[in-house]
């Protein structure tokens, strides 16, 4: 059984988690449709360690995991507040 460590709930069967895509910088709201389409729909599909959104389904808790896409090893998981720790204002 593969185990993932949820920052809020601790180690759980990986079947309790839902993948939420790569963590990427959001484009400027005024960016072109092409840039936005790329951000929303296209994954980089990097080989190696990537940063991804994951959700623990029983608690709907979203967090960030660093995972090696080559070996499927989960390197580290942490709360999203580690990256997103201040409010962003958009004009």
């Amino acid at each position, binding site marked *: 059984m593969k185990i993932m460590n949820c920052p809020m709930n601790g180690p759980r069967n990986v*079947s309790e988690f839902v993948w939420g895509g790569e963590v990427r910088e959001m484009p400027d709201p005024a960016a072109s449709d092409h840039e936005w389409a790329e951000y929303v729909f296209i994954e980089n599909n990097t080989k190696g360690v990537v940063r991804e959104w994951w959700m623990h389904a029983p608690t709907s808790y979203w967090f960030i995991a660093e995972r090696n896409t080559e070996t499927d090893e989960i390197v580290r998981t942490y709360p999203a507040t580690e990256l997103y720790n201040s409010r962003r204002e958009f004009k």
Partner: protein
Amino acid sequence: MNTPLTPQSLPRRSFLYRKLAALGARFAAGNEAAIAASFGGTDEAAAAHNLGLADLSPLRRVGFKGPGAADWLVAQGLTVPEVNRCAAQADGARLFRLGANDLMITTDLGATATLPDKLSAAWAALENPPQSPRGFPMPRQEGFCWFVLTGRHAAAAMAKVCGVDLRPHRFPVGAIAQTSVARLSAVAARDDINGTLAFQLFADSASAEYWWDCILDAMQEFGGRPVGTEALRAL
């Protein structure tokens, strides 16, 4: 005169009322619903000590979620524990902290604690609930079914349907595990009743009948059976 109370004669019903009636439950009225008070048979209290499953779905519970929810409950005078812990309140009610700002308050087994109703009223009386606080009430009464699993084999029965180690020496009183129980996303909290091992169990009410059957099935091996609220109060 002594016509037995039927679930259909009251405005609210347990999600399981058909199953409870088929199991021969004798019902008692509470919170405008029929609560399974006893299933008869020999010594139901002993069954609750061994391994018993009770349905508390009709009993009062409320939830509050979103920014400001925990602070608001602290301001209401509640004891708010850390995330994934539950805490008894002054009137016997329980507060389950399911997230930093996701909290559920239930009445006690005897349904004497009125804290859920008081909080609902206090929330409704807020002048501007969406902003102050910015949280929102969660319909836990309708969204969750509520079971209690009691007895010395409770952890062993749970081990058949749940991957988290709930054995008493690993899972202390007041601990909450939010995990998969019989393939359903669920809340399992350890809340012993007068020294008897007990888990409060909550999961999606739409799957209540399925869940009840799964847990009873896991209990068979240990001689478990359904018990009513009278047996819980006798613990």
